[in-house]
């Protein structure tokens, strides 16, 4: 704690405190919009994206040589062969094909920066979205009452003090289950909202901000005093950059979607050096029971958004790429067989994507057996062959240096599968 406070004062950022009687300093244009100030030594950042609704892993990354799959999905099966009306899959390794709307992933995969794990999922066989998301986010697939989320525990295991309120950040309107717990984590749906606001009345807002800062500084409640101080420091930190007119690096273009905007703001926070180490964003619409489509349609739109958003983020990171690892997750996969309404129902295993320079990329990890009925879970679903915790814990370990799996994932003692080099 002390080191940061000391730095803030020494760095002249306490301008605010001398604004009495005039306009407080924290909004002064003079310091806004300039280059990042480097308040913290940048550490590694793990970015997690939860795809809510259960992504059809067999359509995202299709084992296209599997004849059982072809038979089970008369209108949904896609092939890597050229020449048909449907755009072909991107052949990754002669066995797996990437959905054509995820073309953005091809180059990072070929560059060995992206790894795919197939057959990933939870040991708990529930096919309820709620339960499966809950278990994946708490990280305890057989225990509902776990108070904390795995990302919150990860923050606690980083091994250094939370010098910043932004150590764990979720780009959502309320804190997700993954971040439940006592370690610092904030939910921010829009960086520009992180301020004292009186719409259209900046002077009034400034005056109020000054009043609040003084009041919180004198309160006898330690909790309110300390957090009040942090809040105003945080405002000042964010005010250093012009969040509204942010220009991504390397001409990266984020899709104008919820996920695109979330990742864009995560990129901003990273560049501002606010001390963020664990970030979380969400993507919705994966529950494709009806007409999920093939090269066009709902599913194609979703994977396009996912890949374009992630690639824009990766491009934007530029020289900072070494510091970042992105990992996707989804609560379960979908039935091997298509249903009667051109979609797929709740299944078991799915796949996930991990992007980073220390990833053992260019490979589809995990085990997928031929989709003959005897190889399916309950005779219908892609079997879970990799426990999600073995992948999550490996990424947390290799990227963030979190090795205490007993705390990160209590009740789990499986092995890692080597998705990181």
């Amino acid at each position, binding site marked *: 704690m002390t080191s940061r406070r000391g730095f803030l004062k020494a760095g002249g950022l306490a301008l605010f405190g001398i604004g009495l*009687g005039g306009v407080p300093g924290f909004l002064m244009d003079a310091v806004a919009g300039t280059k990042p100030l480097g308040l913290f030594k940048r550490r590694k950042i793990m970015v997690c994206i939860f795809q809510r609704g259960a992504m059809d892993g067999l359509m995202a990354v299709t084992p296209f040589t599997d004849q059982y799959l072809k038979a089970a999905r008369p209108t949904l099966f896609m092939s890597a062969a050229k020449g048909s009306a449907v755009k072909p899959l991107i052949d990754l390794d002669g066995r797996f094909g990437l959905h054509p709307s995820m073309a953005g992933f091809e180059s990072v995969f070929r560059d060995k920066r992206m790894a795919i794990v197939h057959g990933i999922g939870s040991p708990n066989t529930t096919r309820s979205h*709620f339960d499966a998301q809950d278990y994946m986010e708490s990280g305890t697939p057989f225990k509902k009452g776990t108070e904390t989320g795995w990302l919150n525990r990860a923050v606690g295991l980083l091994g250094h003090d939370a010098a910043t309120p932004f150590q764990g950040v979720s780009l959502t309107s*309320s804190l997700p289950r993954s971040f439940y717990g*006592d370690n610092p984590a904030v939910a921010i749906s829009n960086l520009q909202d992180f301020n004292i606001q009186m719409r259209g009345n900046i002077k009034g807002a400034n005056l*109020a901000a000054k009043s609040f800062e003084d009041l919180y500084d004198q309160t006898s409640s330690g909790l309110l005093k300390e957090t009040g101080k942090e809040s105003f420091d945080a405002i000042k930190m964010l005010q250093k950059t012009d969040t509204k007119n942010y220009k991504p690096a390397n001409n990266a273009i984020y899709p104008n979607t919820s996920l695109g905007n979330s990742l864009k703001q995560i990129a901003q926070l990273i560049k501002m050096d606010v001390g963020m180490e664990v970030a979380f964003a969400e993507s919705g619409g994966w529950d494709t*029971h*009806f007409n999920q489509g093939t090269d066009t349609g709902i599913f194609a739109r979703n994977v396009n958004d996912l890949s374009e958003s992630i690639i824009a983020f990766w491009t934007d990171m530029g020289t900072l790429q070494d510091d970042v690892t992105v990992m996707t997750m989804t609560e379960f996969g979908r039935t091997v067989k298509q249903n009667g309404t051109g979609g797929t129902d709740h299944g078991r295993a799915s796949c996930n994507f991990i992007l980073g320079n220390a990833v053992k990329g260019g490979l589809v990890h995990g085990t997928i057996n031929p989709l003959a009925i005897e190889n399916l879970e309950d005779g219908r679903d892609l079997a879970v062959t990799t426990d999600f915790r073995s992948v999550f814990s490996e990424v947390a370990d290799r990227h963030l240096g979190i090795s205490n799996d007993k705390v990160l994932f209590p009740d789990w003692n499986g092995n890692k599968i080597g998705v990181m080099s």
Partner: protein
Amino acid sequence: MKAPLKVICSFVFLLLSALLFSSFDKGGSKTIKIVFPYKQAGLTERQAAAHLLSRFTYGAKSGDVDRVLKMGLEKWFQQQLDGNIKNESLDKMLDQYEDINLTNSEVENKYPRQAKVVRMAIRDGFVNKDSVGKGDQKAYRKQLQDYMAANGLKPEGELLRQFINQKILRAAYTNNQLHELLTDFWFNHFNVSLTKNQCASFVPAFERDVIRPNVTGKFQNLLMATAKSPAMLVFLDNFTSTGEQGATTSIEDMQMGEKLKPVALKRLKQLQNKKKAGGLNENYAREVMELHTLGVDGGYTQNDVTQAARVLTGWTLAPMGTDGYGAAMEKVIEKVGEANLQKRGFVRNGDFLFVPTRHDNGEKTVLGKKFAAGGGYEEGVELLSMLAHHQSTAKFISKKLATRFVNDHPAQKLVDKMANTFNSSDGDIKQVMIAMVSSPEFWTSDALREKTKSPFELAMSAVRSLDAEITQPYQLFSWINKMGQKMYYYQAPTGFPDRGQYWINTGSLLNRMNFGLALASQRIPGIKINLSSLNNNHEPESAEAALLTYGKLIMPERNLEETVKRLKPMLNDPELVSKVEKAAAKAPIAQPEVQMKEESGDMMMAGLNKERPRRNANAVQLANGNNTMLAQVVGVIIGSPEFQRK
């Protein structure tokens, strides 16, 4: 439906025992002498009244302290525990929410979930199944809307909105404030969540019928009611929990020597095989011990959890609604006949159903107590009763109540005292509450102003202290969410952690300050305040005077010295004041803070896509005497650290 004889019997028994009890209780329960030891703690009666109000209401309204003094502190508290003061104006406000009193069955019929609507629309030929998700999405949505309108159906979001609105109005306006706080407390203790779609539509009835009527009664009744409620059965999955093959009553046994009609037999078989996945589900059994009764260190083992889960197999939902849950089971009941089922050990009790063909008939042992084979429904009742009366439960519940109402880390002495009362009064919540407030620990400096208001409490205390008129309660819900408490959406069965540490963080604290400013400057749509009339239309002569006057109105019996000292120099800067006034004249009028998102399958995604309100070019003066500087002062008071405490 005929009430089962058993229920009538037990009711008569309860009535009798109540009569017996009161006739032997010297002087009757009304004259139990309660004395609050606040004088020993060095408090004046006024200060004590303010403390009581801060803990057992959603915030004092102006004049409340005087009213409590006039009535007497102890009497006021007893009246609050009784909780039967009339609420005519509130009742009128609630009348606008026509669906908050629907039964679960009625809800199932009127508010089908989106996926079900799609299925129904396809079935009725209203929507072509091949068009779902394809082509013009707008036209498709319109089709579905038309279908719903034509069939008198509504989207679930509307029900939930009415439900949330009623909670806010009750908290703001009910005269039975303590009952409302306890409803919140017990709901959170037995938390169920709207994030779980399958149980969301049962949650309104859960609060209304399961929690609300039981908040000051015997703990056992509360526990039993929650165990049998559809919301809890679904939220913690017990409704699917089934005994292992061979352990449940066989169809042959079901025949009981009589020949059932072949069609009835067939239906019974269907019932048994209904959940093919089935099997034992331990979720409820674990949480009922860990979270609802004994506490995590309450002395149970994994084996106790498994055994308890076996005891509770077959506890499930009764069919409800024409197309609702268990419509297939309704057919079974029709065919087999209610009397036939009862004879065979089925128990139907409102929305609850015990199905013996799914119940594990074997012998079990939980916490050392043996449950003989063939115990049926009754052994579950026995188990819950045992848990409700366990020593660990008395301590666990007492500590939780003290944490909510006294301070975040209640003294062991206080908890012990309350636990003793819990034990000696058969878990009578009312008695435990009295024991708590009659203890010196409730009145010491370790308790005064030591609790941090939850975001909900903050919002409610603000509107109450300003005597606000709420016409759009949902606007407050959005703010409360922003401040870190998405009510009814807490995903874990633990409920919101009830600690200041949890409520106060960087983002939420800023939003508390912004809430104060927005509320006082009338920028929250549908929340009307009149600052001037709050002070009997006396305009304060200076900003400093405003600070003092309104500080006292909003925070009665608090020491405002430091607040005034800190704010005075700024408020007395004439240049600054005129700048603020000028800037405010250009400010836009109130706009909805959050664009309501229509019903969506992804509950967690709701609210992500906010639209920013447009700026209104027209200068607008604030209404009736709410001058800007005054609004600013009041906004700062509400956002101040002192007002976050209770």
